[in-house]
C-alpha cells in the first residue's frame, strides 16, 4: 500500500488491442442550459472500451454537468447520446443508463443513511427483488467490496449512517461496481477519493485499472492531479463548459494539466516562512502511551495529518469544547469539512450563513444590527472573492467551493484567534483553494493560529508544523523542512503495518 506501487511499468494495460479502440459512449453536440446559463456548450465526448479517462477542470467547468448527462440524471438540452452502438438520445434517463451499464458515484454521498449496506444495493438494482433478495444483495455488495477494497471489514448488515464518511464513500464506490442483470460497463467516479484515506485511494486506483483491463471503462474526476496521472489512460481538460484539451496520459505532466486548467502552476513544496511566535495558545496533553502532546503557538499554522478519521477531527472538537484537558487561550472558530452536515444552513441567505458565528458581537439590546451585519458580510465576501451577484441570495445558489468560502468567512470574520479547520478543502477547486491558502497565510501573519486537519498532502506544505495521527494517537511531529508526503506516509503506516 505504499505510494510507489503505481510504478509506470504496472500502469500499462495488458494487451487488448482489438477492444481498445472501440467506442463505448459517444456524445455528439451535447449541451445543457440552466435558464440563461449555458453549463455545457455543445461538445463531443467519447469513452472507449477498456479505457480509464481522467477528467479535470476547476469548479464550474461543467464536469459534473457532463457526468450528470452521461449518467442520465440530467437531460441534455441538445445532442445525441450513443451507448454501446445504440442511439439512446431522447429516451435517455437513469434507468436506461443503468441498463446500458453506465453508473455514477456522485460527489456528494448518495446512500440512504438509514439502510444497511445490502439494502442500499437494492436501491440501485431493480432486479434485486423477490424471495431471497437480501442474501443476493449482501453477496453482491460483499463481492464488490472484496474486489475494490480487499480487507475492508464491513458487515453487510451495517447501517450506513453509523459509519464515518470515508467508509460510506467506500460502500458507495463499491456499489457502482455491482452487477445484476445490468452489467457495469462504465463507472463514473466524481471526486471518489475526497474522503478516502491514502490506503483506500490506492486500492481504488488499482481496482479501476483492473476494471479497465477487463475491457470496462471508468471516468475519474479529481482535483488531485497525481491521482489522475496515476490512473488515467487519457486526460480530458474542461473549462467554461467545454473541452479544451484531450491527450493521452503520456503527453501530460502535472504542470501541463494545471496549466491547461487555466491556473498558474500550483505552489508545490514551497516552504512557508513561519509567522509563529513564542506564546503557546493551544495545549492538549498526551492522550496515552506513545502519543505526543499537542501544542500550537500564536501565529502558527499547525497541520493534523495521517489517514482519514484517525482522531484528527476528535482532537479539533476537543479543542473547540475545551474537553480532554485541552487548554486554549482566546476564542475558537471551526471551519467544518462536511458542508452539508455541519456547515451551511441551507434555507438561509449567504449573508446570514456568513454572519451566524458573529451574532454575539453584532447585537444591540438583544437585536441584530442589520446594517453592520450586511456591511461586514459584504466586506468578507469581497475579501474571499465570493462569486455571487448578491450576498442576499440563498446559500445554495453558490457552487460548492464558494459555499466553502462562505464558511471560511464565517470563521475568519469572528473575533476568534484560533481557527480550527476540519478538512475544509474536500472536493474544492484549485482556484478557490489558492484564494483560501493566501488568506490563511495572511491571517496567520496577523497573529491568528490555524489548526488544519487535511487529507491532501499538498496542503501540509502550507503548515509550520505537522502532527501525524494514527489510531487516535499523535505518533509523529514534523517541523517545517521535515514535512513531506513520504514522511507523513511513513509515520501513518509505521506501527500497524
Amino acid at each position, binding site marked *: 500500500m505504499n505510494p510507489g506501487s503505481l510504478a509506470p511499468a504496472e500502469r500499462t494495460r495488458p494487451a487488448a488491442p482489438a477492444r481498445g479502440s472501440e467506442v463505448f459512449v459517444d456524445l455528439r453536440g451535447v449541451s445543457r442550459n440552466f435558464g440563461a446559463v449555458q453549463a455545457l456548450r455543445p461538445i463531443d465526448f467519447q469513452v472507449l472500451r477498456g479505457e480509464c479517462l481522467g477528467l479535470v477542470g476547476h469548479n464550474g467547468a461543467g464536469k459534473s454537468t457532463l457526468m450528470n448527462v452521461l449518467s*442520465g*440524471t440530467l437531460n441534455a438540452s441538445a445532442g445525441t447520446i450513443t451507448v454501446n452502438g445504440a442511439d439512446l438520445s431522447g429516451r435517455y434517463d437513469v434507468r436506461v443508463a443503468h441498463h446500458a451499464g453506465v453508473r455514477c458515484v456522485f460527489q456528494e454521498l448518495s*446512500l*440512504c443513511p*438509514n439502510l444497511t449496506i445490502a*439494502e442500499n444495493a437494492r*436501491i440501485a438494482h431493480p432486479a434485486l427483488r423477490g424471495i431471497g433478495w437480501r442474501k443476493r444483495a449482501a453477496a453482491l455488495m460483499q463481492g464488490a467490496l472484496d474486489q475494490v477494497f480487499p480487507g475492508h471489514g464491513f458487515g453487510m448488515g451495517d447501517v450506513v449512517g453509523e459509519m464515518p464518511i470515508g467508509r460510506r464513500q467506500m460502500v458507495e464506490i463499491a456499489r457502482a461496481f455491482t452487477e445484476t442483470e445490468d452489467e457495469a460497463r462504465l463507472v463514473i467516479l466524481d471526486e471518489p477519493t475526497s474522503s478516502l484515506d491514502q490506503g483506500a485511494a490506492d486500492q481504488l486506483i488499482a481496482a479501476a485499472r483492473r476494471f479497465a483491463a477487463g475491457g470496462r471503462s471508468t471516468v475519474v474526476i479529481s482535483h488531485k492531479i497525481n491521482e489522475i496521472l496515476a490512473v488515467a489512460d487519457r486526460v480530458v481538460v474542461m473549462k467554461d463548459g467545454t473541452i479544451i484539451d484531450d491527450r493521452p496520459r503520456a503527453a501530460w505532466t502535472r504542470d501541463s494539466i494545471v496549466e491547461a486548467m487555466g491556473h498558474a502552476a500550483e505552489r508545490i513544496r514551497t516552504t512557508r516562512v513561519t509567522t509563529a511566535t513564542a506564546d503557546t495558545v493551544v495545549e492538549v496533553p498526551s492522550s496515552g502511551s506513545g502519543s505526543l502532546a499537542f501544542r500550537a503557538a500564536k501565529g502558527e499554522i499547525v497541520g493534523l495529518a495521517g489517514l482519514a478519521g484517525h482522531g484528527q477531527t476528535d482532537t479539533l472538537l476537543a479543542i473547540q469544547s475545551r474537553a480532554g484537558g485541552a487548554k486554549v487561550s482566546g476564542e475558537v472558530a471551526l471551519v467544518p469539512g462536511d458542508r452539508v452536515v455541519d456547515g451551511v444552513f441551507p434555507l438561509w441567505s449567504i449573508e446570514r450563513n456568513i454572519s451566524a458565528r458573529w451574532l454575539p458581537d453584532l447585537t444591540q439590546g438583544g437585536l441584530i444590527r442589520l446594517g453592520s451585519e450586511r456591511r461586514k458580510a459584504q466586506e468578507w465576501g469581497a475579501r474571499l472573492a465570493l462569486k455571487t451577484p448578491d450576498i442576499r441570495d440563498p446559500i445554495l445558489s453558490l457552487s460548492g467551493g464558494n459555499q466553502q468560502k462562505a464558511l471560511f468567512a464565517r470563521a475568519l470574520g469572528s473575533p476568534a484567534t484560533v481557527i480550527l479547520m476540519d478538512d475544509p478543502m474536500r472536493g474544492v477547486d484549485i482556484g478557490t483553494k489558492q484564494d483560501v491558502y493566501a488568506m490563511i497565510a495572511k491571517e496567520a501573519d496577523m497573529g491568528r493560529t490555524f489548526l488544519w486537519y487535511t487529507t491532501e498532502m499538498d496542503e501540509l506544505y502550507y503548515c509550520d508544523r505537522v502532527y501525524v495521527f494514527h489510531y487516535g494517537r499523535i505518533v509523529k511531529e514534523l517541523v517545517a523542512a521535515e514535512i513531506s508526503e513520504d514522511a507523513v506516509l511513513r509515520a501513518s503506516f509505521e506501527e500497524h503495518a
Partner: protein
Amino acid sequence: MSRQALFATAERLLPAITLGLLLAAIFTEQPRAMSYFGLNLLLSLAIPIMFATLAQMMIIAINDLDLSIGSYVSLVACIGSTLLTSQPWLGALALVCGIALYAAVGALIEWRRLPSIVVTLGLSFVWLGLAVTLLPTPGGKAPAWLSGSMRAQPAFAPLPIYFAAVLSLVGWLVVSRSSFGVILRGAGGNARSVARAGWSLLGIRMAVYGMAGLLGTISGLCLLGLTTSGDANLASRYTLVSIASVILGGGSFIGGRVFPVGAVLGAMTLTLAASFLTFMRINADWQIGAQGFILVAVLALRAMLSRGREAA
C-alpha cells in the same frame, strides 16, 4: 456481547420492555385483569389504534406527517354506520373513493412539493365536514357482520392479541424485510438518491398514502365494530395517539427509521396506559398529563440508550 451491541439491543427491545412493565403493573394492581376477558377488555380498543398507527407509520417513513388520520378514521366509522348498512355497495364505493383520495393527496404533495402537515391539516377539516354531513348527530348502526366479527372470541388468546401478532408480522415483512419496504424507507432516508436510482417518488408517495388510506379504513371499520355506532368525532384523538405510538415504538420523525413491530407495541402501550392510570385511581383530569409523562420518560430512556451506544 460488546457494550455497543448491548445498548443497541436494549434500544430495540425498549417498546417491548415498556409494554411488559406496564402489563406487570396492571396485573399487580388488578390480578383479575390477567384473564382472557380481562385482556380482551383492556386491549380491544387497541385494535383500531394499531391500524391507525401503522397508517401513520407509513407516512412517517417518508418524512411526512398525517394530521388527518383521526378524522379520516371517524369518517370511515360514519360511512360504515350509515351507507354501509343501508346501501352496502354505495358504502363500499365510498370507502374505496376515500383510499383513492388518500393516494391522490400523496400525489399532490409530491407533485407540488407541499408540506404534508399543512395539506393533511386542511384535509382533516374536509373529512370532518363530510362526516358531519353524513351523520350530523352520533348514531347510525354498524353492519351486523362487522360488530359480530369484532365480538369474536377465538381460542387460546383474545382477539386483540391475534390482531397484534398478525399486524406485527405483516408490517415487519412488508416494511422491514421486503424489497418494496427498502425503497419506501430509502425514500425517507435520502429521497434524492432513490430518485437518482430511477425510482419514481410520485409513485412511492402515492403508494404510501394509498396504503395509509387502506389502513385508516380498516381502523375505522374495526372501531365501528367495537362501538357499533358512529360519530364524526369518534377517533379525533387518534391523530396524536398514532404519532405517539410510532415514536414510542422506536421510530423517528425524519430519516426513514420506522419499526412496525415497535409501532404495534407502542399502540398497545398507549391504550393500556389509560387503563393503568384508571386502575391507579388517578383523577381523569390528570390522566392525559400522566400519559404524556410516560411518553417523555420512555423517550428520554431511549435517548440515553442511543447516546450510550454512540459513546461505547
